[in-house]
C-alpha cells in the first residue's frame, strides 16, 4: 500500500497561548485504520484539524494523496475537504434545527443544490445505520448513539477517502461504542478509505491496524530535532 497521508516537519502554535505542536514525520497508507492515543490537551484534535485543513501550520507540509493541503488556496482547501474528508466529532455537532435527513445532507446544502441521488444515498446510509425511522425527526429526539450515527452518515455522504474521527465514542455507552466503531471500520475497509481515530478507549485499540501514541510521535520529533 502506498502512502496516502504524509506529514513532514509540521510546526503549529496558537497565537494566544504557549501550546506548540511539532511533528517531524507521519506516514499513513491508503486504507490504513489508525488509532491515535494520548493525554488530553496534547494536541490530538489539533492534528486532525491540521490534516483537514481547518487550521494551517506555521511550517511543514501535509500531503493527502498528491494534494498539498497547506499550499492550497482557502477555497480550494475547503472544496477538497468537502469532497475527500469526512469529519466525526465527539459531541456529534448536529444542527438542532435540521431534521436528521437534512443533517446528513448538510454538506450538500452548503456546497450545491441537493440532488435526488444524494438524498437516496443519505437514505441508504441511514438505513444501514438503523436510522430509517428517524429521518424526519430532530436530533434532540434521538439517543446519544443515534445522534452519533447521524453524524457518521453525514461524514460518509460524500464517500470520503479520508475519515477523521475525534473521540467518536467518547460520549457513548459500551454497546453504542462497538456499534459506532464497527460502522466506521467497516466503511474504511469496504472503501479502502483511510481512518484516523482519536480515542481514549483502550478496549477499542485492537480493532485498528496501527496505534500511534501521540506523546511518542511528538517526542520523536523533539529527539530528532536535537
Amino acid at each position, binding site marked *: 500500500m502506498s502512502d496516502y497521508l504524509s506529514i513532514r516537519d509540521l510546526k503549529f502554535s496558537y497565537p494566544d497561548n504557549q501550546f506548540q505542536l511539532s511533528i517531524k514525520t507521519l506516514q499513513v497508507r491508503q486504507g490504513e485504520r489508525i488509532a491515535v492515543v494520548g493525554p488530553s490537551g496534547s494536541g490530538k484534535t489539533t492534528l486532525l*484539524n491540521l490534516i483537514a485543513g481547518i487550521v494551517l501550520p506555521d511550517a511543514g507540509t501535509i500531503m493527502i494523496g498528491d494534494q498539498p493541503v497547506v499550499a492550497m488556496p482557502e477555497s480550494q482547501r475547503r472544496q477538497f475537504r468537502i469532497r475527500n474528508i469526512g469529519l466525526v466529532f465527539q459531541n456529534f455537532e448536529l*444542527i438542532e434545527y435540521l431534521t436528521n435527513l437534512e443533517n446528513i445532507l448538510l454538506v450538500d446544502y*452548503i456546497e450545491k*443544490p441537493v440532488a435526488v441521488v444524494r438524498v437516496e444515498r443519505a437514505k441508504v446510509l441511514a438505513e444501514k445505520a438503523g436510522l430509517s425511522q428517524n429521518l424526519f425527526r430532530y436530533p434532540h429526539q434521538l439517543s446519544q448513539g443515534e445522534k452519533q450515527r447521524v453524524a457518521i452518515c453525514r461524514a460518509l455522504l460524500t464517500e470520503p477517502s479520508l475519515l477523521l474521527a475525534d473521540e467518536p465514542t467518547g460520549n457513548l455507552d459500551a454497546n453504542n461504542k462497538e456499534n459506532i466503531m464497527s460502522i466506521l471500520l467497516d466503511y474504511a475497509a469496504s472503501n479502502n478509505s483511510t481512518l484516523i481515530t482519536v480515542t481514549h478507549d483502550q478496549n477499542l485499540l485492537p480493532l485498528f491496524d496501527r496505534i500511534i501514541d501521540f506523546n511518542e510521535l511528538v517526542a520523536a520529533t523533539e529527539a530528532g530535532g536535537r
Partner: protein
Amino acid sequence: MKGLWHLAWRYLCFHKYKTLVLVASIGLIVFIPMGLNVLVKKGSEQLTARAEQTPLMLGRVGSPLELVLNGLYFQSDTPPPLNFGDYLAIKDMDMGQVIPLHTGFRSRGFPIIGTRLSYFSFRRLALKEGRWLGFLGEAVIGASVARETDLQVGDTIISAPETAFNLAGAYPLKMTIVGVMGKTSTPDDDAILVDLKTSWVMEGLGHGHTDLSKDDASGFILNQNGKSITANAAVNQFQEITPENIGSFHFHGNIGTYPVHAVIVIPKDQKYSALLQGRYQSHATLQLQNPASIIGKLLETVFSVRQYVLIGASLMVLSAGAMSVLIFMLSQQLRAHELVVMKKIGAAKGFVVGMVTCEIVMVMVSGVLLGMILTLLSEKYGLVLLQSIIVSGV
C-alpha cells in the same frame, strides 16, 4: 444559494416563537407610524366630509361641539333642546331648507332620530328594502341596525323608556319597521329614523287612548265640564300606533314649545348663510354653528395630539428596533458554535454570513409585509374604530 435560503428558512421555522416575535416587532415598527397616519387621515376625511355636507346647525346655546357631534354623528350627550317654534321661526325666514332633529331616545343602544322626510333626501339615503316613513309610529332603520339586531321590514322595535320610574313620564313606544336603508358607512347606518311627531309621542307630548266621547267609555269618566273630560287611571293608553288606533292619537299643549335637539340649516346661498349667521350671532338662547368649522377645530386638537403620539411612537419604534437588533446579535452569539461546525464541515465564511443575512432578510420582509397588511386593514376597517374613539373621547 438555494441551500442557503433553505437553511435560513429551517432555522426560522424551528425557532418559530422567536421568529414570530421578531416579525411582529418589525411589523409594529412599520405599522404604528404608517397606520396612525392613515387612520387619522381617513378619519379626519370622513368626519370632515359629513360636516362639510352640513352647512349650518341650529341649537340651544351651550357647547357647540356637543351640538355638532350630536347633530352629525348622533354621539355625545344629547344637547339641551330648542323649541319647535325656533325651528318654525327660521323656516319662516325662507332663507333655505331646514330639517329638525330630535335625538333624545334610543332603542337597543341605537339612537332614534326624529326628523322629516327631507332628511333622507338631504343625506342621499337610499332604501334597501321597504318604504319611507308614511305614518306615525313607523321607523326606518340603518344598515348596521338591521345587521346587528336581525330586524327586517314588518318587525317591531321598542324605544327604551327614558323615565322608567316616573309614572307621569314617557312610556316605551312599539314602532313598526317599514324600511331598511342601504349601507352608507356614515352614522346613519346606526340610526333608527322616525317622524319627528313619533319622537314627541315618545316624549309623552302626544298619545292615543280610549275615545272618552263614546258611550261605552262612561266608566272611565270622573268629571265632564263641556269639552273638558277628566278620566280615571283605568283609561287605556296605547303603546303601539296601529291603523285602528292612529286616529285617536293627538298632541296636547302648544306645539311651538315642543323639543327638537338640532336643526340642520341649508341656506340658499352664501349670502343667506352670512345673514343667518349674523342674525344668530348674539342670540340669547340659540346658537347657529358651522359644523365644518367646529370639526376643523376638533381635528386641529387631534392633529396636535398626533404629533405627541408620533414622537412617542418613534421612541417605541427605536426601542423595538434596538430590541430586534439585540435579539439578532444574541442569537448569533448563541449560534457561534453551530457556525464554527459549519465552517469545519466546509462552509465558507461568506456562506455563514449569507445564511444569517437570509434569515434577517426573511424576517425583515415578513415584518414589513405584516406592517403593510395591518396598515391596509386599518385603512379599511380602522376608521369606524377611530371615529368612535374620537367622538366618545370628546
